[in-house]
């Protein structure tokens, strides 16, 4: 039987309530049907968040990149394309937390799990090169390159919780990115 796994530091409930927060539900099919909606949504939500920053233009790029990456992955790999994926944002003052929650099939979860083990144990620059080479060799874009770039270039703290659901082989996958608010403001 499958067991729950945690990759990275996936802390539980926040000690203090967030200063700012929102939660949006998407039907994956709506984004798969119009793929540009991922980028549009990421840009809009990033603008919404960055608007309150000292240096909105600087924050916009990092926020949009992170939201887009999480949203695209959640949508692409969700098991049921008609079941909502949830994207949530919490601003705790010093830190920003962006998270997606969706269900994945057992096979997808296993692949993701292996990738996360590599991400947690290998040198990120080496892994980045290895994934680029793999992409070029296989013509595949589902290599986690986006997640690697997010951690490498945007100093994101990535944590993932994988929990088997009670029925079938599906798993609940929560991908959480925590950013330093000051760094985002000066990025």
């Amino acid at each position, binding site marked *: 039987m499958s067991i729950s796994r945690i990759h990275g530091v996936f802390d539980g409930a926040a000690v203090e309530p967030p200063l700012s927060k929102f939660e949006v539900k998407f039907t994956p*099919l709506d984004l*798969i*049907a*119009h*793929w*540009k909606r991922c980028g549009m949504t990421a840009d809009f939500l990033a603008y919404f968040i960055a608007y309150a920053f000292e240096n909105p233009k600087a924050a916009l790029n990092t926020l949009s990149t992170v939201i887009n990456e999480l949203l695209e992955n959640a949508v*692409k790999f969700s098991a049921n*394309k*008609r079941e909502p994926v949830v994207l949530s944002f919490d601003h705790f003052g010093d830190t920003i937390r962006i998270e997606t929650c969706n269900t994945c099939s057992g096979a997808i979860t296993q692949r993701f799990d292996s990738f996360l083990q590599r991400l947690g144990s290998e040198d990120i620059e080496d892994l980045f090169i290895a994934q680029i080479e793999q992409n070029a060799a296989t*013509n*595949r*874009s*589902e290599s986690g390159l986006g997640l690697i770039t997010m951690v490498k270039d945007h100093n994101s703290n990535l944590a993932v919780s994988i929990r088997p659901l009670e029925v079938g082989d599906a798993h609940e996958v929560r991908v959480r990115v925590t950013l330093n608010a000051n760094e985002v403001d000066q990025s």
Partner: protein
Amino acid sequence: MKSVELRVAVRNGDVMRAQYLIVDMYHQNYGILFSNDIVDLNSGIEPYPQSYLLGTVGSEVVAACGLYTRDTYCERYGEVTKDDLQQQLASEGLEARYDVRRTVEVTKLVIRSDYNGRGLGRWLFQAAHSAAFVMRGDEKPPLILCCATRSIFAAMHEASGIRARPLRKFPDYPVHERYRSADNPMDSRLIIPTVDIPPAIWNKPLPCALTLEER
């Protein structure tokens, strides 16, 4: 006995129903994404057809098929040129009857998986090659292009008595890697409706219905 009703999608809701069945099946089976304006075959993002046939059982959508009425896939990505089409028409002495600028392409035929194996696919395929679907009120019939694997041409076109004339081998794109192979490559082909499509298919009326046998 269930009956599948087939109609041209005209209303916004019907177009969306057809698109969503196509998207659902294509993503599930081939990992393909869709967009109107950021099409990229190397990244697995396909363009939408402009017109659709929609098959329903009651309020459920069970089948759909698309039609490119401009910017056909074969011409946009398959390197098919107007000269290729002109040569085919000349070989039949039909240059005056057709306009190489008027091309359409039947594409993205999908059957909901629980309705597979009941003859619905070939029935829909044939309806998609009817004048009622491809002519769209025009006086002259268009030239019909198609892009598929050779096994599909054998199972659908040849089995229906529709002649599809080879134009060019379709270039290899990552987006097609889950259904084409070295043994089963993709071609761009041409159908000249009045000579290549049997009259019973060309004159098929729309809307129409197919009664399915109970399993």
